[in-house]
């Protein structure tokens, strides 16, 4: 219909040609209004960055109290100070050691590697900004909204918002994690002068260590950012991306690609050349820029009709009984499938395992300096549980449950069950394939027990300590202390005990050196009884972990029973 003034008329879908290409000006005008150009480049970045930084600080403080936020870096400083003092027992070329460097000890190079690799893994896990941005856009009409979703309404390019987010996260981690670590190293060196404690670390290496760690962190964040940006662009990246990562990981594991090319920070720390450091840092920022340029201004929140999924899933969960947990688990699985997260999560869970499998296929680990065997992988798998559980908690806002006759512990338990059901088959396939590859069938039953005990325990502990907000608990010192004690100690115990199935001269050397400092009596040597004790020890720890999981399961009501649904 046509009207004087405003006109509006509908047509049938099939009467209109496909496409949105412009055929020149349509004839509208600004009626004399001077049009502004939107802010671009540095101007829009700086306007966004500072506010985002403030937002991040508040987000972290919301979960932990201010005091805990301050305590977290202090805790890191303390742990690093103690580690710095303990370095004398680990390094192979320090004055505190025996002269026989043929014995198995760690070199500085190995220790640097041990510093940079976990840092890279951590930053790879935290840097999937394209996914985070997409979630912020999708959930912007929910109860919480973030600046990362601002481009939907404001004249701010999505790419600039994402780049600001990347730089903001990098700064935040440098401030709250890396700088306290360096402060801890400094404290360790200071203790040397005060108490006569020995540490082989020197003042001059601290600035380079700090810079090198920033580069590794930046590299991990930037690479994960790039990966997530490419993934968001769909095929062919979603197919070839994971394959490329597996091939790359295996090539690195085999030594086909040098570690210097993979861990830029390690290279910088080893060479200490300002130009190389600047290039590496510039490279991280450049990857971040490319990743953000790949983000498109797409604010579509799909409105797609789907077939009923809830009841079919619910019907398959009969083994959970007829209670509320079964209902919630079914709902969580619907979220997992409909959000498309199941693909991302499965790929990110399976890719590192495929890399390990590929390496095992091509390398004889018996030749490795540390006697890694099938039982070493089992506790290692448990660590993936934290990330997977964290993702499960941000799939959907649970606040609607406040109006339903449900309680937070039920939702937490449901998420733990979903984690177990969604990942256990991957872990099981991996450990069986690994047993086949390493030809360690006799260790398989024990490995399966250790693996499941760990997986269940880590997720139960994460869920118990952090509830529905694990991402926000990361800077809460009181929680992280318990998490550290609760995970690192038993898992390290299992990991070290697993080496009793191989060459144990490494322990022997440690004990020998420790005894020279008057801390222990005799060196322990490799024999059959130690293999048996190791086996028993691992089984005993696993059984304890299962009991601990059951206890945490029970205690969930006490800790979270009165909490409200919020993530």
């Amino acid at each position, binding site marked *: 219909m046509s009207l004087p003034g*405003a006109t*509006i008329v509908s047509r049938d879908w099939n009467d*209109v040609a496909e496409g949105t290409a412009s055929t020149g000006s349509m004839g509208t005008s*600004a009626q004399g209004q001077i049009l502004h150009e*939107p802010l671009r480049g540095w101007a829009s970045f700086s306007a966004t960055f500072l506010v985002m930084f403030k937002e991040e600080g*508040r987000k972290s403080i919301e979960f932990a109290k201010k005091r805990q936020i301050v305590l977290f870096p202090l805790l890191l400083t303390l742990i690093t100070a103690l580690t710095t003092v303990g370095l004398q027992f680990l390094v192979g070329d320090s004055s505190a050691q025996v002269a026989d460097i043929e014995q198995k000890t760690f070199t500085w190079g190995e220790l640097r590697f041990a510093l940079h690799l976990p840092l890279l893994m951590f930053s790879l896990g935290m840097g999937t900004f394209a996914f985070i941005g997409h979630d912020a856009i999708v959930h912007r009409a929910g109860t919480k909204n973030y600046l990362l979703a601002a481009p939907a*309404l404001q004249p701010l390019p999505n790419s600039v918002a994402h780049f600001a987010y990347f730089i903001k996260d990098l700064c935040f981690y440098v401030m709250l994690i890396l700088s306290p670590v360096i402060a801890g190293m400094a404290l360790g060196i200071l203790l040397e002068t005060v108490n006569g404690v020995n540490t082989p670390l020197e003042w001059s290496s601290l600035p380079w260590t700090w810079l090198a760690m920033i580069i590794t962190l930046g590299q991990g964040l930037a690479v994960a950012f790039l990966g997530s940006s490419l993934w968001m662009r769909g095929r062919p990246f979603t197919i070839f991306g994971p394959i490329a990562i597996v091939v790359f990981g295996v090539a690195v594991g085999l030594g086909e690609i040098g570690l210097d090319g993979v861990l830029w920070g390690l290279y910088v720390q080893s060479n200490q050349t300002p130009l190389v450091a600047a290039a590496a840092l510039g490279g991280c920022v450049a990857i971040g820029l490319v990743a953000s340029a790949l983000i498109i201004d797409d604010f579509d929140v799909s409105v797609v009709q789907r077939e009923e999924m809830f009841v079919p899933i619910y019907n398959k969960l009969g083994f959970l009984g007829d209670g509320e947990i079964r209902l919630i688990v079914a709902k969580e699985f619907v979220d997992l499938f409909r959000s498309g997260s199941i693909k991302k999560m499965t790929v990110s869970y399976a890719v590192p395992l495929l890399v390990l499998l590929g390496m095992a296929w091509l390398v004889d680990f018996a030749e490795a300096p540390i006697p890694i065997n099938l039982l070493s992988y089992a506790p290692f798998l448990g660590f993936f549980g934290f990330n997977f559980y964290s993702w499960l908690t941000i799939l959907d806002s649970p606040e609607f449950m406040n109006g339903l006759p449900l309680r937070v512990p039920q939702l937490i338990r449901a998420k733990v069950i979903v984690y177990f059901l969604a990942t256990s088959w991957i872990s099981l396939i991996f450990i069986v394939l690994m047993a086949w590859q390493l030809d360690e069938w006799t260790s398989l039953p024990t490995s399966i027990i250790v693996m499941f005990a760990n997986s269940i325990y880590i997720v139960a502990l994460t869920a118990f300590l952090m509830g529905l907000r694990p991402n926000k608990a990361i800077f809460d010192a009181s929680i992280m202390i318990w998490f550290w004690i609760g995970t690192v100690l038993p898992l390290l115990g299992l990991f070290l005990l697993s080496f009793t199935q191989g060459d144990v001269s490494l322990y022997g050397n440690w004990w020998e050196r420790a005894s020279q400092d008057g801390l222990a009596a005799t060196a322990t040597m490799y024999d059959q009884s130690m293999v048996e004790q190791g086996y028993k020890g691992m089984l005993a720890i696993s059984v304890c972990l299962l009991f601990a999981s059951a206890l945490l399961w029970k205690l969930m009501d006490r800790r979270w029973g009165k909490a409200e649904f919020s993530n």
Partner: protein
Amino acid sequence: MVESEAPLVMAKDMAKKYGDFIALHPLNVEVHSGEFFGVFGPNGAGKSTFIKLLTGQLRPSKGQIEVLGVDAVRDPQKVKANIGIVPESESPPSFLTPTEFLEFVARLRRVEEIESKVEHWLDWFGLDEKRDTMCKDLSKGQRQKVMLAAAFIHKPKLLFLDEPFANLDPIYQRKCRQWLLDHVKDGGTIFLCSHVLEMAERMCNRMAIINDGRVLAAGTVKGLKQDQNETLEDVFIRLVGRSIEDLESDKASQESEEDSEEE
């Protein structure tokens, strides 16, 4: 309004489809300077999709869109820089205060004298006491006020409002209504989406009723009424009700066709 004036907003065959679901059938629309144009319809009619397409928040599946002489498909940033948008359900960033959010928006929109403008709108919306409270701790109505202030702060001539008063109390509904009417008198243009028909009678000089992603009728408020006694609600139910009956009869005939094919 001058008939010969070029429109401020124009869309040709603009449509949106999600998979097999057509959220908005192709439509042509023109809005001219000085108009208060309202699009009304039941929940899920396609009103928000309509406004999001015109403001560059969504890419159309078909068609072209131009706003203030700018291609909204090719350069949505420039469109956003020169209009004001009040979304239906979006809140300001949870962890910023109203002051910080308005400062951020003003900076992005190159507003001059930011501090005084922010002060003015905080005061205008009665948010003085909440100026340093994080937005997540504000009530729904207060968050809506912050979103309105963010849309008004750069004084755009063209405003797109999606259910703008949904959470406001009657006092601020009246205050905002009057401000918007004054804005149009001063040469501004407003494009509004709502299901609250009272707004059409009080504010709009032209309106359209849509349902199921199609325009059912358009014209002046008076022009849509069949007689003097008919209320706008009657018009709405007459049009939308009939539209729903049409849909149901279409569905029934489709089902009977499928049944006969099976036989």
